[in-house]
């Protein structure tokens, strides 16, 4: 079975989803989905370990060799993303039952889980594949299931958010499709490695340029890079809590992975920078995203929406890392990719626990909740500190790398702006902290929430605590993300050298 490791993290949820659809009882479906997610996670970890030892793994699907058939090509980067996504999925499924049950009507629960597994399969498929078109297909699987998941939010605005996401996401996917079409026409192949070998000869080609631009724009739409982020706040805000946790922690990360894969592996860096002033574009957009996202986040009356805008800002940081265009910059982006998943996972998970108790995520409902749910709020606090980048948390590590990367290019203004960005983060996080700990609680609407100390259900709480502690743990023991990121970044650059 070991030789099939590359396919398992995708195959398991892929098989699991239809089986789950056959299970009518929600509880059975949930147990099954958890099992599948955990197995996927285990497979992903094993895969990561294997890539660590053996380097790149190639897996020819259907037994057809690479350019003719579809190939899975797993290196450290893929391994890291696969592990991250499946890990978050397991966490959400294991801990989120109470929240899902609360926010989804009885008859939709098992379908919700099916859609969740499909989304997982889609994301894993994107992260694992070595074929450009296959990537598009799995992108669509994940997108479609995401639209449905977002639409399950209780508020009617969830529907509009899902619709907007659908339109924007489809435009993005179609752009990617156009781009893939262009480069296919030039090279005759869809395999990423093969493309990478053939594209350098085509640096002059305007078609390759257009293809590149289309792919990048399409991916940035999925990534919600400012100013293409318009779908994100609505989707995150109105989706049901667990969906938000999962999306915030994984979906944009996978999109970032695609961005990196295309701009560094498929199109070599020389090509990318030749074709577009990528550095300028990414750095500018990234920093604008940081400020725009953070500033808007500060003024949101709803915490969920605020955190959604914060995601826009954090994506800005990652894109800056990519835009720096050095090994360490890429490493910074990847480290932040990993860490941000943990932060936002912890924050949204704890928020889900709060929402479970008080009914919504408005600041006015969160007043003084720190006394009623001390542990949950502590988790939120840790996540927030990590988001700010306080030393001793994972967020600090990523900020550190980012600043070092930018400093390496001697772009001091950018350093200042990046740091100023974290101050803005501090502002909205501190608004949260003040509300939660110092606010005077108002009347509660949710009828069955007991007065006084009432922590969230154990599952939600446990996962929040685990994620929050992970933020601290990875603030000290940075080996996993940092080494994987540096290995991945180096190999991406090594591949880029002629």
């Amino acid at each position, binding site marked *: 079975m070991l030789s099939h490791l590359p396919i398992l993290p995708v195959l398991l949820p892929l098989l699991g989803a239809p089986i789950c659809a056959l299970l009518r009882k929600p509880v059975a479906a949930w147990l099954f989905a958890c099992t599948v997610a955990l197995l996927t996670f285990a497979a992903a970890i094993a895969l990561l370990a294997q890539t660590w030892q053996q380097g790149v793994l190639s897996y020819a699907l259907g037994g057809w060799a690479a350019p003719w058939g579809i190939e899975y090509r797993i290196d450290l980067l893929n391994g890291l993303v696969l592990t991250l996504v499946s890990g978050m999925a397991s966490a959400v499924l294991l801990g989120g039952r109470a929240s899902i049950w609360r926010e989804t009507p009885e008859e939709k629960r098992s379908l919700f889980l099916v859609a969740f597994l499909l989304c997982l399969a889609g994301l894993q498929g994107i992260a694992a594949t070595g074929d450009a078109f296959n990537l598009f297909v799995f992108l669509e699987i994940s997108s479609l299931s995401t639209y449905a998941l977002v639409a399950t939010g209780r508020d009617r605005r969830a529907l509009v958010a899902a619709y907007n996401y659908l339109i924007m996401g489809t435009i993005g996917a179609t752009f990617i499709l156009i781009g893939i079409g262009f480069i296919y*026409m030039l090279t005759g192949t869809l395999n990423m490695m093969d493309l990478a070998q053939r594209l350098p000869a085509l640096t002059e080609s305007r078609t390759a340029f257009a293809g590149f631009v289309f792919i990048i724009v399409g991916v940035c739409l999925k990534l919600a890079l400012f100013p293409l982020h318009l779908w994100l706040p609505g989707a995150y805000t109105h989706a049901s809590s667990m969906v938000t946790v999962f999306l915030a922690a994984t979906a944009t990360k996978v999109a970032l992975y695609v961005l990196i894969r295309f701009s560094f592996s498929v199109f070599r860096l020389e090509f990318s920078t030749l074709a577009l002033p990528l550095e300028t574009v990414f750095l500018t957009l990234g920093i604008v995203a940081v400020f725009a996202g953070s500033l808007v986040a500060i003024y949101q009356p709803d915490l969920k929406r605020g955190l959604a805008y914060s995601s826009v800002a954090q994506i800005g940081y990652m894109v800056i890392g990519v835009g720096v265009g050095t090994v360490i910059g890429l490493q910074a982006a990847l480290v932040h990719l990993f860490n941000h998943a943990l932060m936002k996972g912890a924050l949204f998970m704890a928020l889900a626990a709060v929402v479970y108790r008080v009914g919504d995520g408005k600041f006015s409902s969160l007043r003084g909740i720190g006394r009623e749910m001390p542990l949950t709020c502590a988790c939120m606090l840790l996540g927030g500190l990590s988001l700010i980048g306080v030393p001793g948390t994972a967020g600090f590590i990523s900020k550190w790398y980012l600043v070092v990367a930018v400093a390496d290019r001697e772009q001091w203004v950018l350093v200042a702006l990046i740091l100023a960005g974290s101050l803005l983060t501090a502002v909205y996080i501190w608004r949260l902290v003040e509300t939660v700990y110092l606010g005077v609680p108002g009347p509660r609407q949710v009828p069955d929430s007991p007065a006084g100390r009432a922590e969230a259900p154990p599952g939600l709480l446990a996962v929040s605590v685990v994620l929050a502690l992970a933020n601290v743990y990875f603030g000290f023991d940075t080996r996993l993300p940092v080494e994987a990121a540096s290995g991945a970044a180096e190999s991406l650059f090594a591949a880029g050298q002629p």
Partner: protein
Amino acid sequence: MELLVDIALLSMLVATAVSLILVRGLVASIMLTSIYGLLSASFFVTMDAVDVAFTEAAVGAGVSPLLLLMTVALVGRVEQQPRKRHIAFPLLLVTVTGVLLIVGTLDMPPFGSADAPALQHVAPRYLQQSGEEIGIPNVVTSVLASYRAYDTLGEVLVIFTAGIAVILVLMLPGRRGSVPDDAGRQRPRNVVVNVVSKILIPFMLLFALYVQFHGEYGPGGGFQAGVIFASGIILYGLLYGLPSVCRVIPPPVVEALAALGVLLYALTGVLALLDGRPFLDYSVLATDPVTAQYLGITAIELGVGVTVASVIITIFYAFAAHLSEAQR
């Protein structure tokens, strides 16, 4: 001559698209969409893309206008005159995209050239060796179901996802309470249409199955078959009402079939894993490689067909149930 047909079709496509922008009525738009689908399908035929034409005919001119219409029946068919709409920004965006697209075409291999890179690298092998390796004449099916079978699995999963998504959003009859029973209401009986359709439906269904099993030899395959099959069922549903069609094929069964189709496909691939070969390697199915390919392709095409048909029927059920509920 080819060029003439080509240009004529393309011009009509443009005309249709322009009309779509100008027309405000939604039903009118849908009719134009359906015309657009027909035109593009015809265009695909002239481009030798028969399988695609097949699919586009079934989808672009069949299922998708139908779904659109059912939605419009729900939401009303008038598009409102925009009060103050800024068209400058969309125009700009569209122009930029257009310019980029044109730039993209500048260095493209000329239309129809036989020495385009796309024909030099991967494709020749499909054309030259699929005959021996796969043993079926339709190269598109060979590529679809064997060389790039994994893509197709993804495709099936996409359609399955769509089914799940639609149920999640709209719910199926039977999931939300009981099947709406409108037997009490007098529906205008349409003798002519009903009788003729009754005669035609069996042929449609059988033709769908014919397409299913002859995909290896000519245009067609699981997807097209599924759509046609579903269309036949939908026709029945439209004429005889949702409760009747739900009696013929109960919603839970369709739902289960959709999942089973995916499973059939995926498990065909998993069989190879058990023997230590890569996923979707059909050679485990038989000792003779060509027979194995044939078996594998048949199996997965069946999976595709079952899933596609079930999902489209499911989607129809969901919309129809919603519609009949809204009417009440």
